[in-house]
């Protein structure tokens, strides 16, 4: 089934949840997401009144700020049919944790549930809602895929990214052993307990390097920055990209942590 023609005027209205890491560190991921969503027949808008899903506050125990941010996100994304984020952890925040955070808030409890029901991680939205089974992209090389903790265990996503990757011309997917074991990022954990985070990362890097794939992909920029940072420190010759970049055929730009002079 080929993707519907772009810029449909009657496709579902998607509000793109950019995520703070994508906004600050790798905008190309968001552009790739927009390209994929529009190719899939959705209309995409990016509300300006967004910054962060609130995970740093939430996971640090700062419930009040997490609630305040949640209310804002709910407000900003209310007008949309769907909310899509190129991130399992941010989607998990919206889908799983906002309802919990606002369970006792009479004004927002229902609205949080409504938002949760229409929030999706990118690849899962493309496959499960837009019904895509393939993308029009090519990528010559072997890739391996890391499943983020949120994608695996909060959102139960496994199939969607793999199905789309399988349709990329020239791409060979090598399964990563223990793909759903944590990479050690964990948000603030990575800087509060860097040595432990690094030790957990080492195990992940060993698994990645053992596949001998030429690239490693994931759907979460936090994981990708952790992994890319580790591989770069090791001077390993393996590319790190967000899965959206490959699916959207936008791999001309340097990989994550790669020198701008490369490629």
């Amino acid at each position, binding site marked *: 089934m080929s993707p519907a023609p772009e810029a449909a005027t009657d496709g579902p209205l998607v509000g793109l949840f950019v995520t703070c890491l994508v906004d600050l560190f790798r905008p190309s991921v968001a552009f790739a997401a927009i390209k994929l969503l529009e190719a899939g027949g959705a209309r995409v808008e990016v509300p300006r009144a967004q*910054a962060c899903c609130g995970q740093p506050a939430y996971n640090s125990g700062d419930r009040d700020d997490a609630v305040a*941010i949640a209310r804002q996100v709910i407000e900003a994304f209310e007008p949309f049919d769907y909310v899509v984020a190129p991130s399992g952890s941010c989607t998990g925040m919206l889908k799983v944790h906002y309802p919990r955070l606002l369970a006792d808030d009479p004004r927002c409890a229902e609205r949080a549930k409504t938002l949760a029901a229409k929030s999706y991680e990118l690849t899962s939205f493309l496959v499960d809602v837009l019904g895509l089974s393939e993308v029009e992209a090519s990528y010559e090389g072997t890739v391996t895929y890391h499943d983020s903790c949120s994608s695996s265990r909060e959102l139960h996503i496994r199939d969607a990214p793999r199905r789309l990757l399988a349709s990329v011309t020239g791409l060979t997917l090598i399964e990563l052993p223990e793909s759903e074991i944590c990479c050690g990022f964990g*948000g603030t954990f*990575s800087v509060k307990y860097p040595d432990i985070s690094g030790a957990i990362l080492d195990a992940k890097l060993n698994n990645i390097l053992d596949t001998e794939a030429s690239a490693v992909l994931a759907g979460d920029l936090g994981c990708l920055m952790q992994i890319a940072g580790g591989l*770069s420190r090791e001077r390993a010759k393996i590319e790190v990209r967000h899965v959206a970049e490959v699916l959207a055929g936008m791999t001309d730009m340097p990989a994550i*942590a790669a*020198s701008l002079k490369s490629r």
Partner: protein
Amino acid sequence: MAEATISFKKAASEALADGELQRALQNVKTGFVAKRAAAKSRLPEFEALRAEARAIKDHTLTHLDLYLEAYESKVVESGGKVHFAPTAADARDIVLGLCHDYGAKLVAKGKSMVSEEIALNAHLQAAGMEVVETDLGEYIVQLRGETPSHIIAPVIHLNKETVAADFRRAHKGRLTSRRLSDVQDLVAEARSVLREKFLVADVGITGANLLIAETGSSVIVTNEGNGDLTSTLPRTHIVIASIEKIVPTLEDACTILRLLCRSATGQDITTYTTFTTGLRHEGDPDGPTAYHVVLLDNGRSEMLGGTFQDMLRCIRCGACLNHCPVYGAIGGHAYGSVYPGPMGAVLTPALQGLDHVRDLPNASSLCGRCEEVCPMSIPLPSMLRAWRERDFAEGKRSRAEGLALKAWAFAAKRPGLYHALAAVGVPLLTRLAGGRGRFTRLAFAKPWTRVRDLPAPEGRTFQQLYAKMQKDRK
């Protein structure tokens, strides 16, 4: 507080640098993890049993007072006595008192986490009694003057050469030239040394995996048989268990046992699962003539009806430890608590308060594997967050951390300001990286760059680029 943070981080660093420990921890990841997965795949009813076990425990906890009373009356009926211990100190004193009453000189012990929790051995030893741990792992830990590093496999952190050296040092009156090079040799020697103790011990103390209200029984699961020798040979048998170990019936015990063994070691059942009820019956040629059960509260009753009630469903299988990337990196001792790993990070502050153990609930990436494998469906990550909320509210975090979070939240709640600040910071940061694509060193990001490189931004924020793109379109 500050002291405790340094000790956890220091202990964790030492653990990370300890080559022998790191090799041993591999055994946890490959051994227990694989075995549990295999056992689970052989039991199609695993998820159904999980749901039922949770319901059994929830029902029991909401009727805990009544089940404790029912259990007590059955113990008394079978000739035993039940002693309630509100605190650890009470439990220690009760056990010491009983040992005095029975003129105990030598006390044999089966494995009991609760006895570690209340530091029972030192209390009895201070009163002049000899206390011998009979579980092989616990025995070795005792010889070394250490604490166990894993609730199921106490000496998973040691290799056989280390154990052989401990045995040579501690076991007197044996040929120095004797062979202790194989694990078999070590086990054989431990068997003969401990056999002598079993046969003359005055009191046997065991823990309990479960207590059964229906019959007043206590249940222990072992592979060695030491718990059985401990509870059968000495004249007095003391069971020490925490109050949440109660289950209503034998059937409920069956359900939980099916999950416990598979989750802990990947066995369908341990070699010995033993139900002891009261003292020897008339005409029994063996068995104790006195039976006492010490029921420990030590903070558990306070957990009922609150945020941490679900933690009381824990059956101490150790699956969460085995699957935790943090435990897998630093081992059990670094936690500085009797209960390590995810369950320890939740339970320890519940039993003793957050002071001195603040790192425990914070040192987690919240990956969620623990909750995924917990046979009792305990929402561990949620409870870790709940502890973080209390920690945050108590305001004892470092100033730097507090400021950073406050600044971030301040901006995040004001997207306009956030975008404006990012629009300045991101280009600056990009320029600093100078085309290299990453930072190997960055002044304000030392905790990150000490361990790994930091990818550089792309020159502009997405919001900047998108806004420009929208403008260009018009």
